[in-house]
């Protein structure tokens, strides 16, 4: 029973989600919206599990007898969590917590935003080091990768057009880059997208039919 009932639930819900697309009549037309709300609710419950797990792992690391150098960072994690938790739950006007001027917003703007923006900005460096390493003409395929990247990069920089300014219109680097993006690039993209659609259909069917149910664990 520990696997049969869940398998039946997945089957039933999956089939409903497919047929609702074709039936505008109530209640089917709005069923997916309802399910999506339910998903949100379950996820909102589940985040308690995640948060507790994070705190447990962090505090265990800090309070363990092992005198590792890194042990105090666990306390920093827990303290940061509690800081924003207390301010967001009790000190920022309830569900208006995100309104500019709230204490929560102050933390958001001055701690959260710089951290996440800077983490994101590291990509500027990583994209440079990855392209230096990856774009080498090691084989025919790698050469195509290199050539496409090279032309598109040059075409997107204004310098590309300055280099080829003597060429007639239609043959400048930005136009070459646009051509690569609109034709060969779209061809590959299309093949990938159609393939994905089939892959999703197949994987979804396997899940709905209960052929793949490792997510349910054992008996």
């Amino acid at each position, binding site marked *: 029973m520990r696997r049969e009932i869940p398998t039946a639930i997945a089957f039933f819900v999956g089939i409903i989600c497919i047929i609702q697309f074709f039936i505008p009549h109530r209640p089917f037309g709005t069923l997916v919206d309802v399910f999506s709300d339910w998903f949100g609710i379950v996820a909102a419950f589940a985040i308690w599990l995640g948060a507790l797990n994070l705190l447990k792992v962090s505090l265990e690391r800090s309070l363990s007898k092992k005198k590792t150098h890194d042990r105090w960072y666990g306390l920093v994690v827990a303290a940061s969590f509690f800081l924003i938790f207390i301010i967001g739950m009790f000190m920022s006007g309830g569900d208006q917590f995100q309104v500019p001027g709230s204490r929560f917003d102050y933390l958001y703007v001055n701690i959260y935003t710089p951290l*996440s923006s800077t983490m994101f900005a590291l990509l500027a460096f*990583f994209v440079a080091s990855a392209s230096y390493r990856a774009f080498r003409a090691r084989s025919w395929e790698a050469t195509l990768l290199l050539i496409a990247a090279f032309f598109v990069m040059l075409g997107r920089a204004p310098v590309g057009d300055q280099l080829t300014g003597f060429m007639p219109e239609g043959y400048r680097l930005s136009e070459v880059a646009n051509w690569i993006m609109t034709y060969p690039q779209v061809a590959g993209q299309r093949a*990938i997208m159609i393939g*994905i659609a*089939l892959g999703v*259909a197949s994987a979804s069917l396997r899940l709905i039919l209960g*052929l793949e149910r490792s997510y349910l*664990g054992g008996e």
Partner: protein
Amino acid sequence: MLASAAIAQTAPGDSSAIPALTIAQPPPPNPATNVKAEDAPNDGGGSIRVTWAASPDDGAGRKNVASYNILRAVSSPTGAGAFDTVGSATAGNTEFTDGHTEDGIPYIYIVEALSSVPSPGGTPVMVSVRSEPTGVAYSNGQWFHMRRLNALIMVIIVCGAILYFIQQASSGKELFIRKIAGLDAVDEAVGRATEMGRKIFYIPGTQDMDEVQTLAGITILGRVAKVAAEYEASLEVPVSRSLVMVTCREVVKEAYLNAGRPEAYNDSMVYYLTDDQFGYAAGIDGLVMRDKPSTLFFMGAFYAESLILAETGNSIGAIQIAGTAMPAQLPFFVAACDYTLIGEELFAASAYLSKEPKLLGSLKGQDLGKAIILLAILVGIVMTSFGAISMDTSDLDKLGNYNIGQWFEVQ
């Protein structure tokens, strides 16, 4: 009881504006004609579609129509009730859907053309003219969405093909499946971790369980965890969503059980960091630099964090096997990882690794689906190319019935 062309002020009762109107010469626009109301098709009920022919002064003639108001009244045997405005449409539109009707109630509609007329006072005055009322219309819900018939056919063909081959495979038919390089490397990658005595990190994407790629990533985790259990490698699964954490624990536990090493499983192998995209990336980067895992798996849905994770993994020289169906992130994994499963291969991976006939059958079904799509494209292109010989193809809309592509348009 209805004047077919009534002149009304925007502010009823403001009689002082009326003389101004007579001084300001421009006459009101001509009314909209041929106004019809009918149940909006392909919906769950509760809406009526009103259509009309544009006023002769809308964009032409006197060019003074600014917008249309749509008015509605409930019809009854004793005559229609009062008309209320239910919405408006800017000039140029000839259609409006009233989404606030009650099913089974008889409604009639009027379309009012509005024009703004300059007045000596400075502020322009709105003048309006009403159309003839429509006949009675009812709204109700439909049981089948006709504009989605083509999608239904598609679903039936694709799912039918997959189910057929699953059926075939379970009756014991041999199936050939081509090599997928990234997946053949799983054993090697896990084995290396054991030899080096280092960890394996498995990252099932950064999205939640409502993303099917996450489900695919988790299913692959089941196979990888089994190999890890057999090789006695140490596996860690840091995740970004609580639901994913719960599911991954079930999957890994089951895999260790199947590999005959249930005692080696521990809930702390799967842990949650944060839901946040870059907070998670920061956490993983730190873990990777400190633990120096020998092998990293990235299987699931990723966004911009893909390259942050993969470059950091690359900098410590780990073997990296990635798989995603996020077209925008594929280039980064291809550049920074040793093996990358591209799009559809991610969804094929669990079947490939399991070697279960039924699951392999579904791959063959996918292929049949692809073959049918290829055929449809080919036939479509040939037909439209012949149909459109010497026709102006600068705009596909001009092809009319020869534009076969529109058969595939789903509403």
